[in-house]
């Protein structure tokens, strides 16, 4: 029983640290994004709240909590309230299966450096990112606004299209690692990272991941200059904040997944494992911000053409070739 209580406390601590880091990093990714985008455009970016604007995320958080929480006339009450929570919930929950280190031994027991090592971890992630579509589609639909509806429908169609290529691009990884568990996938990269074995998969995955997170150049569901802000236009206060948290946590989760599937996960020399994972997450996120500062938005037909006519066939052919190569070797 004593061992159970110690384990329980450790588990709670682990979760608190994971969630704390996720949310704090999300806040500072917003800051980094604003700062970097500003520098790309020869502006200063936030620089009033604290040194270099470092207190800006905290000020934003306070502002969002104290803002009025409006619900437009004719909105579908229950769904309107539910949608932002769904987005934030699925994004945060996805991190549960991401391993952030090797097992360590404490009090004579093995403490795994992962919250839940599901043997269907990869399917769990794909299932959750499917659920995330509901937040976008329902949020857009429930707002009783034409722009929101358009944004929600666009978002739903875009996300399900790219989810397909996202899933298909990960099949070669599963074939090589021989497991759907993220812990095993990281262990399979002890000698060589999968980015060198599966460069085609990596490119398909990264493009699909960016489309999944609805960032420029794939931000057609939000498209400020034609739809206002798309599916979350009618949201204010903390409900908008939850969409925002969801987006930035999702960005980190995608960075973590890129690291786990292609960049060797938490593996790296000298530094402790969680630090390596964090470095890789931040690197991927910075690349995404950089891309956002560089590329213009795609047109909707171009978006669908890339997804269905390029990525899906390429991923399918990649599976066949990978299968043959594995069997020959």
């Amino acid at each position, binding site marked *: 029983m004593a061992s*159970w209580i110690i384990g329980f406390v450790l588990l709670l601590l682990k979760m608190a640290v994971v969630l704390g880091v996720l949310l704090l990093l999300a806040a500072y990714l917003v800051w980094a994004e604003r700062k970097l985008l500003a520098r790309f455009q020869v502006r200063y970016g936030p620089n009033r709240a604290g040194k270099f604007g470092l207190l800006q995320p905290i000020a934003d958080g306070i502002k969002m909590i104290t803002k009025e*929480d409006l619900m437009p006339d004719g909105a579908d009450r229950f769904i309107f309230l539910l949608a932002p929570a769904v987005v934030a919930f699925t994004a945060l929950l996805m991190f549960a299966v991401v391993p952030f280190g090797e097992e360590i031994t404490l009090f004579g027991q093995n403490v*795994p450096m992962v919250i*839940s090592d599901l043997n269907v971890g*990869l399917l769990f992630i794909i299932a959750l990112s499917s659920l995330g579509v509901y937040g976008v589609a329902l949020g857009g639909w429930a707002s009783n*606004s034409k722009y929101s*509806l358009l944004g929600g429908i666009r978002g739903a169609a875009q996300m399900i299209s790219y989810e397909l290529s996202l899933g298909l691009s990960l*099949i070669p990884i599963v074939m090589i690692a*021989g497991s759907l568990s993220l812990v095993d996938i990281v262990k399979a990269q002890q000698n060589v990272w999968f980015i060198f074995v599966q460069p085609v998969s990596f490119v398909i995955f990264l493009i699909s991941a960016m489309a999944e997170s609805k960032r420029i150049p794939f931000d057609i569901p939000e498209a400020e200059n034609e739809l206002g802000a798309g599916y979350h236009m009618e949201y204010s206060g903390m409900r908008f904040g939850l969409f925002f948290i969801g987006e930035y946590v999702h960005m980190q989760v995608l960075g973590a997944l890129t690291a786990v599937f292609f960049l060797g996960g938490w593996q790296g020399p000298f530094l402790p494992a969680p630090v390596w994972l964090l470095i890789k997450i931040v690197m991927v996120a910075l690349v995404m911000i950089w891309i956002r500062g560089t590329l213009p938005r795609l047109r909707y037909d171009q978006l669908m053409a890339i997804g269905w006519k390029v990525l899906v066939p390429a991923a399918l052919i990649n599976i066949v070739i990978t299968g043959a190569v594995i*069997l020959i070797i």
Partner: protein
Amino acid sequence: MQPVAGGALLSPWTPGIFSLSLYTIFVLVIITALLFLSSWLGEKKPTPEKLRPYECGIIPSGTARLKYPIPFYLVAIFFLIFDVEAAFIFSWAVACENLGWAGWLQMSYFIFVLLIGLVYIWKKGGLEWGPESSEK
């Protein structure tokens, strides 16, 4: 991870269903707390103008539950077909080495048929968007 045995189900040391459920509760509590704080501390002065759906300052006319174009339905249907097939490929992928060349041949044939299906909807114009697609 091995399937969880009965005794280990509630063990906090194994990273299984128990820790996942606990994490889920944690996440739900955080989201609820944020929403509660917002509704507790937030301003509450609704006026008819504030509650009107935003349409660039023009007073909205008609319902916002518009009919939307057919291609969106088509994408949903294509997705359904391809996603089920992706799930099938996943189950092969885990055991790909054990199934050997026989499994590979069967799966290649399956993917070949899938690609023919993709080419077919492509040629039929199912993947086209914009004004040109409706004129065909």
